[in-house]
C-alpha cells in the first residue's frame, strides 16, 4: 500500500492545477456570459493535454491510466468549480462505453480522447433515486431485429453538448431488474429524440432527453441485448469515485477560502481567526475533509473487490463524502457571515456544488439505506472481517 503519487501522476496534477487556476478559475467564470457551460476551444485543450485520455487504456487511444488519474483531475476541477462537462463525457460516458462493448470502445474512444466525439450517458430517470438498475425506458421490438425507444431521461450530464447518447432501455424485465437492460449508442439528432437543456444550480448544464419512437437496430447496440447492467455498474463505480474526488477538491478549497477570510475580516477590533469558537469549527472542517479524502482512497482500493464488497465501499464513500461536503461548505458560508450567501462571492458556489453532488448517483441517505439493508441481510461475522 502506497499513497504517494507517481512522478507522472504528480505531473498530471500539477499541470492541471496550473492550467485550471489560470484558465478556468471561478472568478473568470462568474463574469463570463452563460453559454451552456461549454467552451469548444477549451475542450480541445483538455484533449490536447491528454486529460480525456488519462484514465483510458492504450488500445482505446488512452494513456493507460485508471481511476487514480480521473480522480486527480476531478479533484483539481473541484477546487475551481470547473463547469466543463468533463465528468459526464470524460468519465461517466467514457467508462460505461469502455465496459459495454470492447469493439466499439476501440473504435470510438480514440475519438473521444481526441475531443472529436462527445457522448453522454442518458440513463438516469425521474424515479431512479440512486438505483443503477432503474430503467423504465422501453425498447420495443419493431421487426427485422429493430427496436423503437420510448422514455424520458433526466440529468444527462454533458447532454447539452453531446453528439451521441448512450441510452439504457429495457428489452425485458421489470423497472428495477438487473437483467433486461440494453444499451444503445445513438446520434444526438436522430428523429424522435428531443432534448431540453437545463442549467443546474451550480452552473453546470445537463439535459432532459425524450425518446419518442427513436428507431434503433442491432448496429446501434452496445454489448449484448439485455446485458447492459454490468457496464452501467462499471461506469457508475468510476463515476462515483471521480465525483467524490471532485468533492474533496471542493471541500479543500472552501476550507482555505474560509481560513483566509477569517484571517482578514475584523470585528470587535480583532481578526476573526482569534475567536476559539471559529477555530474549532475550522478544525472540524479539516477533519471532515481528510476523512473524505481517505474514503476516496478506500473506494479506489475496493474497485477490484467482488461486487458486494465493492458496492458497499462505494456506498460508504458516497455517504461520508456527501455528509462531509455539505458540512464543510455550509460552515464555510456560516463563517463568512452575510457575504457568504451572495452570488458574487465564491464560497456559496462551493455549497451549491455539494448540493448537486447529493443528487447525483444517490444521496448520502440513499447509500446509508443500502448499507442498512446489508447490515440486516449479512451475518455479523462476515461484516467484521471485511
Amino acid at each position, binding site marked *: *500500500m*502506497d*499513497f*504517494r*503519487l*507517481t512522478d507522472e*501522476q504528480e505531473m498530471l496534477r500539477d499541470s492541471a492545477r496550473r492550467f485550471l487556476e489560470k484558465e478556468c478559475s471561478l472568478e473568470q467564470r462568474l463574469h463570463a456570459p452563460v453559454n451552456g457551460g461549454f467552451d469548444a476551444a477549451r475542450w480541445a485543450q483538455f484533449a490536447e493535454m491528454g486529460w480525456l485520455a488519462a484514465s483510458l487504456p492504450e488500445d482505446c487511444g488512452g494513456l493507460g491510466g485508471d481511476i*487514480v488519474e480521473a480522480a486527480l483531475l476531478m479533484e483539481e476541477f473541484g477546487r475551481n468549480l470547473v463547469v466543463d462537462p468533463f465528468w459526464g463525457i470524460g468519465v461517466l460516458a467514457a467508462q460505461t462505453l469502455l465496459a459495454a462493448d470492447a469493439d466499439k470502445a476501440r473504435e470510438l474512444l480514440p475519438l473521444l480522447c481526441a475531443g472529436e466525439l462527445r457522448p453522454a450517458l442518458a440513463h438516469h430517470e425521474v424515479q431512479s433515486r440512486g438505483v443503477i438498475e432503474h430503467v423504465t425506458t422501453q425498447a420495443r421490438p419493431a421487426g427485422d431485429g429493430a427496436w423503437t425507444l420510448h422514455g424520458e431521461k433526466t440529468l444527462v450530464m454533458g447532454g447539452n453538448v453531446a453528439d451521441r447518447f448512450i441510452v439504457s432501455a429495457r428489452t425485458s424485465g421489470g423497472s428495477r431488474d438487473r437483467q433486461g437492460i440494453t444499451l444503445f449508442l445513438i446520434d444526438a439528432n436522430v428523429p424522435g429524440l428531443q432534448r431540453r437543456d437545463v442549467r443546474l444550480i451550480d452552473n453546470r448544464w445537463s439535459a432532459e432527453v425524450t425518446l419518442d419512437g427513436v428507431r434503433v437496430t442491432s448496429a446501434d447496440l452496445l454489448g449484448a441485448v439485455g446485458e447492459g447492467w454490468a457496464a452501467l455498474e462499471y461506469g457508475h463505480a468510476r463515476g462515483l469515485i471521480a465525483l467524490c474526488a471532485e468533492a474533496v477538491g471542493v471541500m479543500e478549497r472552501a476550507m482555505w477560502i474560509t*481560513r483566509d477570510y*477569517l*484571517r482578514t475580516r475584523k470585528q470587535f477590533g480583532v481578526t476573526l*481567526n482569534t475567536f*476559539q469558537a*471559529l*477555530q*474549532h469549527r*475550522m*478544525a*472540524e472542517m*479539516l*477533519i471532515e475533509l*481528510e*476523512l*473524505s*479524502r*481517505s*474514503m476516496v*482512497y*478506500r473506494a*479506489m*482500493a475496493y474497485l*477490484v473487490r467482488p461486487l458486494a464488497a465493492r458496492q458497499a*465501499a462505494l456506498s*460508504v464513500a458516497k*455517504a*461520508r463524502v456527501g455528509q462531509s461536503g455539505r458540512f464543510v461548505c455550509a460552515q464555510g458560508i456560516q463563517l463568512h457571515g452575510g457575504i457568504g450567501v451572495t452570488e458574487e462571492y465564491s464560497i456559496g458556489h462551493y455549497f451549491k456544488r455539494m448540493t448537486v453532488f447529493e443528487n447525483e448517483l444517490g444521496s448520502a441517505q440513499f447509500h*446509508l*439505506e443500502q*448499507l*442498512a*439493508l*446489508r*447490515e*440486516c441481510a449479512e451475518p*455479523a*461475522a462476515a*461484516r*467484521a*472481517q471485511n
Partner: protein
Amino acid sequence: MDFKLDPADEAFRQEVRAFLKENLPPDLARRGACGFHPIRADQRRWQRTLFERGWGAPNWPVEYGGTGWSHLRQFIFDEECALAGAPATDNGGLRMFGPVIYTYAGAELKARLLPGILKGELYWGQGFSEPGAGSDLAALATRAVRDGDEYVVNGHKIWTTGAHTCDIIGLLVKTNPEAKQRGISFLCVDPATPGITVRPIIDIGEAHSLNEVFFDNVRVPVSNLLGEENKGWTYAKAVLENERATSAEVPLNKRKLAQLRHIAMHERSDGCRVIDLPGFAPRLAQLEVDLRALEWLTLRALTEKSEGAVLPYGSLLKVRGSELVQRIGELTVEALEQYGSYLYAEPGEDPDAKPDWPPGPDYAPGVVADFMYRRAATIYGGANEVQRTIIARSFLGL
C-alpha cells in the same frame, strides 16, 4: 498510488489469525471481549505468550526486542488480536513509555526496564496529570528536590491508570520551579517505595482503573531519571504523541461494532430482531461508515508517518476516534434495553471469581460499564477541545 494490499501482508494476517486460534485461551478471549478493564493476570499471561513467539513488542525496533514490523503490519496485528478478543496488551509500557525509553534513556535504564515490558513483568502507570494540571499539563506542581544520589518527591498525581497494579510509574516532576516546560523531569518510580499512597478512584461505571497517587518525601534514586534533568517535557510530549497516533483505536472500535451487530441480531422486540426495527440499521450503517473513514485515515497516518507527516494526524484521529467509541457505546446500550441498565459489577482481578450478576445474555456484562468509562475518551490523551485548538493553530494557521 497503489492501494493493493501486498500478498505478503495478507499472508501475515493469516499467520496472525492462525497463531491466535492456536494460542489464545478461550477464557482470556471471553474476558477480553467484554467491556471490563483487562485484569493484570490475563495481560501478563498473554504478553508472555506473545513474547515467546517473538511478538512481544510489535512497534519496537528489532535491536530492543521488537518485531521491526511495518506500521501496516502492526495495524493488521492489532486488528486481528482485537477481533479475536485478546486482552489489551500494556499500552503504557509498549506504546507510550517503551519508545521514549529506548529513544532517550541511557544504556543502564534501557537494560533495566525494556526486557520487563517485553516479558509482561513490568507494567506502567502514567503519573502525569495532577489536580491542577489537566489539559494544561505543564502547570504540574509535584516537586523533586535533589538530595545526594536521590530525588525527594512530594506531590499529588491523579487519573493514574493501573497505579494499584502497576510495577513502575512514569512520573513527571518539577525539578526547577522557576521554569514551566523547561523545569520538568521524568522519573521512573517503583510504586512500592515508602511514602507513596495509592487511593482508588471509582469511575461512573463503578469500576476501578483510575487512582490518585500521593507522594510524601518519596526517595527516588537519581539513576531512575530518564534522560536529562529538566528535559522531561520533551519526553512527555513524545509519550503523548505515541498515545495519540493510535488514539482512533480502530481495532477496538471494530470489535465493539462487531459486538453491537451481534447484540442487535439477538435482542428482540416482540420477536423482531432489533437490527430489523425501523431506523436501527441506518444508525448502525452510519457507524460503519464513520469507522471505515477513520480506518483509512489511520492507514494514511501510518503510511505517511515514516516520511514526516504534514497533517496533524494524531489530533484528527483522537477527536473522531473518541467520539466514535462513545457513539458505538450509546447504540449498544440502547440495543440491550434492560441489560443496558442493569449493574453488572466489575469482576475484579481474580480470574476465577464468580460475580453475582443479574440475569442476562453473556454479552451484556461490561457493556454499560465500558460505556460509562468511555465518557473519558473525549477527555483523556488531551481533551478534544485542546486537539481542535492544536489543529487550528498548528495546521490551519489560525
